[in-house]
C-alpha cells in the first residue's frame, strides 16, 4: 500500500501531544565532525520546529534546553559537557512514570539506552564497519556491530542518512523497508563564518590549491591521490594539494610514499592536521576545488559542505556520495588514479558556476531531514500514537 506523504509533519506531530527526547551523546565532545555535526543539525532543527515538544537528555539526565542551544550556537560541546558534569545544565531525570502524551526517543547515533521510550528511532550513518571492516580498527567494528541488531530491534523507525545506507540495511540485515527512512543530511554554517573566512587567507597565499578534507584513514582513499600525483606530477606545478584533517587509524595503509616527500618539503603538498570548523570553512571557501576520493560513505558530508560555499568538488562515485554531490560534482572511479586525473582535468575545463554548487547544496537542510523523519513517523500515526 502506498501511503500519502504527510503535508506538514511537524504540525501533525505537535497535534499528537507527544514529546521528543533527543539523545545528546554525540554532542558532548569538544570538536564536532561527522556524526556530531549531524546530531547538531537535527537538534537545531528540532529546536526551531518543535521547541515545545523537544527535550534533551544525556544518560539518565535531562539537560537544559538553553544549554543545548548555547552549544549549538558555539558549535562545540566543550561547555555543554562541563555544565552537565558540574550539574548546572541538568534539568532532572528521565521520567519513570507515564506522561500525558507518548514519549519519542530520538537517537542520532548508537543508542546508549534501548526501550526507554514509548516510541524509538535511531540514525544509522553507514554500514562500513560491516562491509569494510578491514578499513576500521577491530574495536570500532565490534562497537558498532555489537549495538546494530539491538538498535534495529528496539526501533520503531530507523533513519539513514542516504538511500544507499537504507538499501544496505535492507540487503544485508533484511530490515523491513517500511520501517526505514532515508533523511539526507543538511548543511548550515553559522552566520559569522563568512566574515571570519574573509579575514583568513588560504594556506598557500594567493596560489590556487585543491583541498582534501577529512580524517586520514584508509577508507578516505588518499593513497589514490598520492598515486595520481606520482603519475602526474605536473599537477603540482599549477596548484598545491592541501590535506586538512587529523591523522586517524591504520596509518601504514595510507602513508605518504617516499617519492612524494620532496613535494612536501617543497610545500607543494601540505598537511594541516586537525582544523576547527571556522578554519575548515575558510579552507573550503578559498580552495580552487575539493577532492573527495572516499572508497565508501554513508553520505559524504564534506562534498555537500564544499558545494555549499560554492567550491566545486571532484568526488568518487562510490556508495552514497552521488546522492550528496548530485549533478554538479565531477565523479571518478575511486580505484583508478588515471580516472581521478581525468576528472580533475575535466573540472578545470568545465568548472561549474559557484552559484550552481550553492543552489544544489541549498536543497539539503536539517529542517528537510527532520521533515522526512517526522513525516515517516506520522505515516504510522495510527499505530504509534
Amino acid at each position, binding site marked *: 500500500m502506498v501511503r500519502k506523504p504527510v503535508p506538514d509533519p511537524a504540525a501533525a506531530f505537535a497535534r499528537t501531544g507527544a514529546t521528543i527526547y533527543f539523545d545528546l551523546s554525540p554532542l558532548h565532545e569538544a570538536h564536532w565532525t561527522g556524526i556530531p555535526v549531524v546530531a547538531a543539525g537535527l537538534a537545531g532543527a528540532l529546536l526551531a520546529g518543535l521547541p515545545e515538544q523537544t527535550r534533551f537528555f544525556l544518560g539518565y539526565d535531562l539537560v537544559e534546553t538553553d544549554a543545548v542551544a548555547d552549544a549549538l550556537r558555539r558549535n562545540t560541546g566543550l561547555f555543554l559537557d562541563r555544565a552537565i558534569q558540574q550539574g548546572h545544565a541538568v534539568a532532572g531525570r528521565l521520567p519513570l512514570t507515564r506522561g500525558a502524551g507518548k514519549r519519542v526517543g530520538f537517537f542520532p547515533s548508537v543508542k546508549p539506552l534501548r526501550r526507554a521510550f514509548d516510541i524509538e528511532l535511531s540514525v544509522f550513518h553507514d554500514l562500513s564497519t560491516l*562491509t569494510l571492516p578491514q578499513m576500521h580498527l577491530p574495536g570500532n567494528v565490534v562497537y558498532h556491530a555489537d549495538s546494530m541488531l539491538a538498535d534495529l530491534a528496539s526501533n520503531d523507525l530507523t533513519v539513514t542518512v542516504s538511500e544507499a545506507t537504507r538499501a544496505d540495511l535492507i*540487503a544485508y*540485515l533484511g530490515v523491513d523497508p517500511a520501517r526505514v527512512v532515508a533523511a539526507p543530511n543538511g548543511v548550515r554554517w553559522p552566520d559569522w563564518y563568512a566574515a571570519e573566512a574573509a579575514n583568513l587567507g588560504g594556506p598557500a597565499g594567493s596560489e590556487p590549491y585543491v583541498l582534501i578534507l577529512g580524517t586520514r584513514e584508509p577508507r578516505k582513499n588518499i593513497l589514490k591521490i598520492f598515486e595520481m600525483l606520482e603519475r602526474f606530477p605536473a599537477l603540482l606545478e599549477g596548484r598545491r594539494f592541501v590535506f586538512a584533517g587529523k591523522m586517524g587509524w591504520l596509518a601504514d595503509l595510507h602513508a605518504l610514499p617516499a617519492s612524494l616527500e620532496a613535494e612536501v618539503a617543497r610545500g607543494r603538498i601540505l598537511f594541516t592536521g586537525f582544523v576547527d570548523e571556522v578554519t575548515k570553512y575558510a579552507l573550503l571557501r578559498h580552495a580552487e576545488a575539493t577532492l573527495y576520493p572516499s572508497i*565508501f560513505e554513508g553520505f559524504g558530508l564534506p562534498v555537500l559542505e564544499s558545494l555549499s560555499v560554492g567550491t566545486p568538488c571532484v568526488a568518487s562515485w562510490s556508495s552514497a556520495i552521488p546522492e550528496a554531490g548530485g549533478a554538479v560534482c565531477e*565523479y571518478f572511479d575511486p580505484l583508478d588514479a*588515471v580516472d581521478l586525473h581525468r576528472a580533475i582535468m575535466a573540472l578545470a575545463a568545465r568548472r561549474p558556476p559557484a552559484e550552481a554548487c550553492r543552489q544544489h547544496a541549498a536543497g539539503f537542510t536539517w529542517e528537510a531531514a527532520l521533515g522526512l523523519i517526522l513525516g515517516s513517523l506520522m505515516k504510522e500515526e495510527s499505530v504509534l500514537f
Partner: protein
Amino acid sequence: MWTDAPAIVLSCPVTLRRHHAAVLPISQLALPQCLLGAEAQLQAFVAAAPAPRLFFAPLPEMFCHARSLAPVWDATGASAAGPAPVHLRFGAVRAVRVMRAARNHVVLAEGRPAPVVTPSRHPFASGAVVPHAVERLFTWDAAALLPTRFGGGAVPATVLPDDMVAADLGGAATRDGLDLVSLRAFSAAAFAAGEVGEDSADLRAAGGAAPFVLVPWNLAHPGSIVPRLVQRLLHVQQAAAPVVRLVLLPFNECGQIGEVDGLVRLIRKHVADAEAGLAGVFVGRVRRLGALPRLRARAPVAWLDVHDPEHDWSTRRLRACGFEPVALPADETLTIHIETGFGLLSFATGMPSLRALRALLEQLPTVARAAVRPRGKAGRARGA
C-alpha cells in the same frame, strides 16, 4: 546458465591496492595466487564457464547509486532498464558482500562449519548466515552444511559439477610463477607487493634429507591451527637437523598477510634458536599453475587442518593438482579464542599431539613415495 544476464560480475575478498579499476574484464584479472581458496575457486569457475560477459569487481559493495552503476553498465553493456547482471561472490561466508541492482549469488567452498562459539553480536560473526539479499548458493559439495539467510530461511542451493574443482588445470609448465621464501627472510610488504621468487640463501641451504611438506593456511579462518602447528614443530625439532620443512601456503588473503609477520614475532619470542628455526620454515605462493610441477617436485605432500571450513575443497584441489593431501590428526583438542573484527571468537578445534606428529613424520616417506607415483588423468597428469 543465466542466458538473460547481460553480464556476470565475479568478486572475492581482495587486497584493494592491487586493483586499479572498479570493474574490469575477467581477462585483466590478476590474483596473488591460484592454488587454493577463493582465488582458485574463482579461476576454476571462469575456466569451467568461459563467457565473454565475465567481469571482476574488487569492491562490489561500492556500487549503489545510478551514477556508480554507470561504469558497470558501460563496461558490461548492461543497462538499468534491462535484466539485472548476476553477481557471483566467492570466499568465506563471513565476507559475503552484495552488489546493488544485481542478482546476488554465492559460490561457497566452506563445506563444513567451523564450530565457532562467540559472545559477539556482530551479525555475521557466526559464519553461518549470509546477507538477506543473497538469492542462491552454489556449493562444491552435496554434503556441505549450508548457511542460512540473515533473518532466517534457507537459501536455494545448487551443487556444482565435480570436475569444476580442476577446470583451470592442464596448462603447460612454466619457469616462473612460484614464490618461496623462508620465514626468516619473509617481509609482508615485499610479499604483498609482488613477485618474490624462490632464490634465497635459506632455500639453497635447505638441502639434505628433511622433506618439504605443504601446509595450506586459510587466512579467512581465524581458528586455523597452522600458527600453533609451526610453533610446536619448532619447539621440538632441532634446527640443525630438521626432520621436516614446512611450506606454509597462505590463501584467502585480504590484507592479512601481516599475520605471517605476527607468527614470526611469536616464534622469535617463544622458541629457542628461533632464527635457525625460521630459516627452515617457508612461505609459498603459486602465482601461475604452470609452476605446480616445480612445487610438486619439492613438496609432494600436503598436511591439512581438518577443522578448516575449506578443508574438503582444498583436499580435492590439491589431489587434482597431483599432491598427496593428508588430514592432520586432531587428537589434541583445544579451543582457540581470538579477537577479530567480528569480536571475540572461540573455535573448538584440534591439532596433532606430539605422538601423532611423530607418527605422521614416520609415515611421511611412504606417503611422499605414493604421491610421486604416476596416476590417472584426475591426478598428477593434470596441471603438469
